[in-house]
């Protein structure tokens, strides 16, 4: 039935589009993102079911969607490569107190946003941070420098100077 093909095409398109939009869009919704996400169902509804409002068509559409979601999840679980393709990889934004600007520009994240995340975990300065990582689900993880890391760092610096 045509509904299966329509749901499959729109599912793949939406998955690709959301993947292209970037991780950040999943985590914090700006007013623009919110409007986009509200409009998407309205736009695709007509394309999905057209004028067929029968229960059978709705059941077919739902089962097609669940099958695609399950297949995506299974593929992602069975293959690490597919997991990275479908879900994305974590992106390092800060390493040992240094901004990785290329990654920040790529993910459209500003230093202000990173500082805001630092304050949320009780840190003030970028030097107090070992890692800031943008996770595949759009959240930002902040890993502070531990005392052992500082000691290791200073001994490394000492070794390199002698």
């Amino acid at each position, binding site marked *: *039935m045509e*509904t*299966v093909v329509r749901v499959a095409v729109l599912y793949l398109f939406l998955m690709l589009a959301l993947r292209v939009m970037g991780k950040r869009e999943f985590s914090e919704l700006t007013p623009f993102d919110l409007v986009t996400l509200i409009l998407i169902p309205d736009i695709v509804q007509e394309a999905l079911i057209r*004028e*067929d*409002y*029968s*229960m*059978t*068509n709705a*059941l*077919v559409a739902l*089962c*097609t969607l*669940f*099958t695609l979601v*399950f297949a995506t999840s*299974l593929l992602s*679980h*069975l*293959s*690490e490569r597919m997991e990275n393709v479908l879900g994305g990889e*974590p992106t*390092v934004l800060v*390493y040992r107190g240094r901004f*990785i*600007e*290329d*990654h920040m520009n790529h993910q459209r994240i500003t230093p202000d946003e990173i500082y805001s995340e630092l304050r949320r975990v009780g840190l003030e300065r970028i030097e107090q941070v070992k*890692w800031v*990582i943008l996770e595949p689900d759009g959240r930002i993880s902040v890993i502070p420098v531990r005392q052992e890391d500082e000691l290791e760092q200073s001994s490394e610096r000492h070794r390199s100077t002698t």
Partner: protein
Amino acid sequence: MAGGEDDVVRPPEAPPMIRRFRTDPFQLVGLAFIVGIPILALAGVFGMSRAEVAARDGGLELTVRYVDRLRFGQTYNLEILVTNVGRQAFDTLTVSIDPAYLHGFINATWTPSPTQAHKVDLAGPRPGEGRLIVIALRADRYGRHTGAVAATAGGDTARVVLSTLVFP
């Protein structure tokens, strides 16, 4: 990673594991149902399915093209063709449909228009001629709807039974 820093700027990776598909029997039954529905749909099980039935009595041949399976809300054209296959012309031709069959549908639009409820009288076809009646129907009640279509002319009556399943 950023220019030349790939080796350094990579967070510690999670250890690998053997990835397998595991599920319990209960979930497997549910999955079979969920996956089975789109497969059946692709195979055309829930789609509109056309059928044709025919009957003959004396010089009267009745052929009905109808839909034996469709979904709620879908519309289709029921085509009734009555042909004079005999050697004598008929004066009048009457075609009727069982109200039990039409009960499952709404917006029945007849071409030509019915002369009585569920019935149309037409000028009898000459030998080799035919009369076509088209009724546009919209499925309004789910379930199976069965009824007969009859064509009567010159003492001959050809009759066929239609049966249409409307999915909810």
